């Protein structure tokens, strides 16, 4: 059986610039697939080609074994990075308008409930807060009961509270067995939501796998952090570095390292243990910070 979405050697040039440079991957049904990378990495161009909005310069995209077409339009739900909504109509009227465009739809009350739109249904779309607006855009993407949902940087610009609320909505959609394609430059978002990720930079894929597998592959160690003040001047055998008033110790054997610290009579009252994050991974892969 052919994969849910199959991408082969996808390329997109803009006036000589290779925005996407020959990438291939497959997306499985029912999984949340993340495209990660800094701004300008080619995430949006890639996802827009998957959505059928942007024509590839070369390469193929197959949806359930067939090129994107009428059926894909009916079965895909899309949330763009920026979308203007029609002015002067309410949230409810907007949903109704989009509902009338599709052959198969979710009943509006269910949609309103699942995206928590009930409190501002009769509000003009121009007067929504950032979080309300994103929830409405998500609802529009879900209006046709899609098989696959594309979310392009859905929480960019939201405050932490609104972001967390949005993640919960996405978790619920996942539980319904929908496939999700998500782009983000928030590693925490990718880590929480995605089953598989690819990391892109300069239009190419630089890493690919499940978040945990990627971290395990690139980082054998965990990081122990201790206040520098609690630390003796020298302690042999420990791989450590001072950053600000914290000392960070890289450890591949946590038990051994802690035993060693106790022997050195270091106070463990201020000890914190941190896992490597996808931010660290990106830094390790490219030598650059992700959000620059």
């Amino acid at each position: 059986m052919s994969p849910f979405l199959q991408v082969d050697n996808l390329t997109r040039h803009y006036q000589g610039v290779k925005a996407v440079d020959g990438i291939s991957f497959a997306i499985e049904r029912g999984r949340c697939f993340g495209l990660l990378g800094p701004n300008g990495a080619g995430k949006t161009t890639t996802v827009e080609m998957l959505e059928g909005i942007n024509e590839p310069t070369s390469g193929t995209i197959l949806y359930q074994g067939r090129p994107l077409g009428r059926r894909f339009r009916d079965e895909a739900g899309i949330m763009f990075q920026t979308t203007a909504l029609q002015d002067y109509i309410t949230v409810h009227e907007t949903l109704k308008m989009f509902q009338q465009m599709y052959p198969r739809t979710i009943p509006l009350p269910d949609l309103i409930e699942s995206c928590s739109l009930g409190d501002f249904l009769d509000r003009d779309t121009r007067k929504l807060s950032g979080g309300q607006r994103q929830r409405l855009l998500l609802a529009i993407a879900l209006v046709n009961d899609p098989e696959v949902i594309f979310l392009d940087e859905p929480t960019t610009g939201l405050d932490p509270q609104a972001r967390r609320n949005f993640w919960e909505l996405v978790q619920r959609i996942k539980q319904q067995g929908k496939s999700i394609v998500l782009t983000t430059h928030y590693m925490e978002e990718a880590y929480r939501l995605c089953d598989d990720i690819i990391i892109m930079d300069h239009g190419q894929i630089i890493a690919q796998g499940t978040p945990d597998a990627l971290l395990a592959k690139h980082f054998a160690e965990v990081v122990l952090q201790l206040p520098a003040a609690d630390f003796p001047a020298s302690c042999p055998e420990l791989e450590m570095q001072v950053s600000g008033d914290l000392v960070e110790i890289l450890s591949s054997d946590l038990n051994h390292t802690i035993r060693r610290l106790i022997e050195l009579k270091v106070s463990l009252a201020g000890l914190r243990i941190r896992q490597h994050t996808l931010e660290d991974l990106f830094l390790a892969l490219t030598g650059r910070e992700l959000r620059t």
Partner: protein
Amino acid sequence: MSFRRFLAIMQARNKEFWRDRAALAWNFIFPIMVIGGFAVAFSGDGPDLYKVGITDAEEHQKLHFETIRYIQFIPVSDLSDAIVKVERHQLDMLISPSTRQFWINKSSPAGYLLERLLNGSDEGFRREAVEGEGIRYVDWLISGILAMNLMFSALFGVGFVIVRYRKNGMLKRIKATPVTAFEFITAQVASRLWLLLSVSALVFLCTDLVLDFRMYGSYLDLLIVFALGAICLISLGLLIAARLASEELAGGLLNAISWPMMFLSGVWFSLEGVNPWLVKLAQILPLTHVIDGARAIMIDGAGLMEIMPNLMALVAMTAVFLIIAARTFRWE
């Protein structure tokens, strides 16, 4: 073509229009203000100069009458045209020195005074009285103002709005749905056509209540002319909006098209007597045909057959605009 999707987009656009109070008010108030303003400015008995048409102006012995000051003598070549002008109070008198005839309108005070002046200065002229109501400037202007409003609303309400939708990503959002370009465009056209015709009808009714326009033709014919004109101008708006993504450029282009049309299509003044080259140029402007057709219906009581050249020109231009617009249209 799915009628359901077409209707969904059209209804949303209609709501946007009716709820945008500022733009709505402007659509109504602007033409009413212009018509009202001109009605007031040109009321009364007009300028104190009398206008007398004179045939064979160069080929006769000068009359004493012609030496009287404050009378403007206008040479006329076509006698029957000039008589119509007397009927309409566009000329206060017409004299033909070769046949010793003069024409005045029975209901014109100026005609009465000029008759007394003529009889006092020259002898032997025979009086030919004609009848007819005067045409006020507003009677003539109303077609022009309604058509001008139609033009601005069609060009900016469709052209500018589509460019804005394209720029802010709304078109892209629609593209991601099963809606086709054809459904989207026809919905925009239908929505704007319906709005334009209802606004024009309301403006006409409101001003007609006060000014009681001269209307010799059929209201249905007038509606047909305005509907064809609206479709033609909307198509022109679509053509301009087909692929532009800059509101500034679109605004500039729309202005560059609408302002010459406003002056060359005879909204404010008749093109009679201007450079024939300009008159020819005006024939390629859709607005000219709307205004000429509407005026012929209202003032001369023309039927559809008599204004067929105007109607055919509008249909032909619409076809050209739509074909090019459909070929060049881009969602992004």
